[in-house]
């Protein structure tokens, strides 16, 4: 076993254990916890046995294990980016709705009757 393997394999297993404990304590959903635990254990396994990764890559028709890792990393990265973009969009819509509501409640008429606040009890105002 190389130094790299000696450090990373226990580290990955430790992370898998932490994720499992957090899942059992309810900090993570069962599905999410299972996925992360499997991912970390698989990472530990393929670091410990690189030839197994090459076997899987050949079986998938890719050839090299390094290429398999690269494709997987790119696709996972894209997936994560899209997931967080979606979350960002939903959060932005939520914030926009709150800001809009506050803005509408504070509408003012200028001119001679300046600072004519539109009262928040105005039932005509939209709420979203």
């Amino acid at each position, binding site marked *: 076993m190389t130094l790299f393997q000696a450090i990373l394999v226990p580290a990955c297993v430790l992370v898998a254990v932490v994720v499992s404990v957090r899942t059992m304590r309810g900090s993570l959903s069962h599905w999410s916890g299972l996925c992360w635990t499997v991912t970390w254990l698989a990472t530990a396994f393929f670091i410990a046995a690189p030839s197994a990764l090459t076997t899987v890559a050949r079986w998938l028709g890719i050839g090299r294990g390094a290429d398999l890792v690269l494709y997987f990393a790119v696709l996972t990265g894209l997936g994560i980016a899209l997931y967080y973009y979606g979350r960002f969009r939903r959060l932005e819509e939520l914030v926009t709705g709150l*800001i*809009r509501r506050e803005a509408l409640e504070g*509408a003012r*008429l*200028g*001119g*001679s009757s*300046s600072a004519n606040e539109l009262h928040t009890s105005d039932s005509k*105002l*939209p709420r979203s």
Partner: protein
Amino acid sequence: MNSGTSSRLDGAGKAAALASSGEHTWVIVPAFNEGSRILRVLDELTTVVANVVVVDDGSTDDTGLNVLSRSVWLVTHPVNLGQGAAIQTGIDFALARGAAYIVTFDADGQHRVQDIAVLLSSLESTGADFALGSRFLGSTKGMPVSRRLLLKLAVVFTWVMSGVKLTDAHNGLRAMTGRGAASLQIRHNRMEHASEIIDQIKHSGLTYTEVPVQIRYNADTLAKGQRMSDAIRLALRILLRRVVR
């Protein structure tokens, strides 16, 4: 209707009539850091329409204070959200106050108040729910070549994405009926809203018409215009939103 219907009317005459008859017509002016230009726009607008709402989109200059010196409504976003969000806020405000017709009008002085009456008359004469201003049907002069190219690309992009063939897809001067406005739910906060509105018009099944309008191009109104890099970013955001809802 539905494509390029021209309604060239006597804008000045109609504008005068609008002042007395436009009780249920609201003009929405989204504004961001327009302190130096907003008063000129409001002074022109208040001569032809009774109901004006300025949506100050988180300006850091004196836009809001200036607006309050005129007899118009001011709605203030505490932070800058973008023109699309400001227009939707203005639509919500106007509809809550019983608007029968709503006009969107830019705060930088590039639009002419005479064209408001032309748009509204077009809605009435054609029975359409949306009257979209088109500078390419009108007699716009002084448009830079780069801007013309950008706008033509936007037309093609909108055609491809929405299947709606317009002559001007990104004109901020448009009018709509209350029914048309109520059908809109602008979710793109920034400049993509122009394409989104066209998309929503198509999916709502409501009718639209294009109306010739004139855009004033000068150093002042060109100062905040869209650049090619903005357009590319805008197109990417629209494409991304098609993937991630």
